[in-house]
């Protein structure tokens, strides 16, 4: 049985990734932190693809929750190796740096960077044993270009891009690929406070993207079509930045 874990899988891009991987035949572990109603909707969409799904509630930034939930599941299910890990959990707490609180900085960094570390360290060992694995980190245009008002978010995503490149070199010889996908402006809850009209002049394709357009690239990287692609950051941004 093939399993995939998607962190932050209850809504937005994470949900679209869950559905995409389910369509590729993966059973999906849907991690979420708080919104159980949305997570259950994602689970329904996954099951509609004819595969199994499970909700897994934990805060990726808290080591003890990751070990207690995901770690225990892995121990209890040795016959269900997780072949695909999508580190998607993330939040925005925008502010100008001069006004940014410690909490705004720490929360964003903890979820993106510590979250990547806590979850990936647990799963990579299993992938090393199996000599197979696909890790896809959902980063951001913000981590490549830097966006004003997002020094925390930009820094956190840039950190994960660095980790992507380093880890890909550590595990490549055991047939594990590690890549990142960097979405630009995508229509989700995270961008609902942004006026698409104001921004689309900046975007060569003149519109925001959809979660499914990001999920398609994640699906490609997780598939056997991308067996020789590793350590890369693929932008999905309508040509906004390269």
């Amino acid at each position, binding site marked *: 049985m093939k399993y995939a874990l998607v962190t932050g899988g209850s809504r937005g891009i994470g949900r679209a990734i869950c559905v995409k991987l389910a369509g590729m035949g993966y059973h999906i572990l849907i991690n979420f932190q708080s919104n159980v109603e949305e997570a259950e909707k994602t689970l329904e969409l996954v099951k509609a693809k004819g595969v199994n799904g499970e909700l897994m509630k934990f805060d990726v930034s808290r080591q003890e929750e990751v070990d207690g939930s995901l770690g225990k599941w892995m121990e209890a299910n*040795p016959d269900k190796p997780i072949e695909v890990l999508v580190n998607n959990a993330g939040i925005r707490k925008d502010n100008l740096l001069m006004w940014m609180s410690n909490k705004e900085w720490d929360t964003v960094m903890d979820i993106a960077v510590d979250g990547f570390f806590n979850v990936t360290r647990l799963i990579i060992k299993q992938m090393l044993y199996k000599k197979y694995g696909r890790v896809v980190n959902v980063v951001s245009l913000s981590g490549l270009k830097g966006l004003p008002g997002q020094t925390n978010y930009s820094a956190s995503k840039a950190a994960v891009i660095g980790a992507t490149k380093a880890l890909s070199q550590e*595990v490549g010889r055991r047939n594990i690929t590690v890549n990142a996908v960097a979405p630009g402006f995508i229509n989700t809850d995270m961008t609902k406070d942004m006026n698409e009209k104001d921004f689309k002049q900046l975007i060569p394709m003149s519109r925001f993207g959809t979660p499914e357009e990001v999920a398609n690239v994640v699906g490609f990287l997780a598939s056997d079509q991308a067996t020789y692609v590793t350590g890369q950051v693929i932008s999905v941004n309508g040509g906004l930045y390269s």
Partner: protein
Amino acid sequence: MSIPTTPAAMTKEEIIEKIKGFLVEEFETDAAKITPEANLRETLDLDSLDYVDLVVVIESNFGFKVVGEDFINIHTFQDFYDYCFNKVAQKTA
């Protein structure tokens, strides 16, 4: 993940043979070069990334956890055998 079980009655000779077997297979080394006094790192031509493979083969063959510091005092194959004897003994105690 399949954590192997180590037979409690495994002798030191059996452990050595098992180690030699997986090292030859994983690192494509001439078995004749694996002598107790030979240097582990030089004989297997290990770079830092090779330790990923070494840890994986140890853990998957013996089922005990290996941490990086364990290798500080391992220089020769005999050191490595002794380390594995102790870990296997602790696991089966």
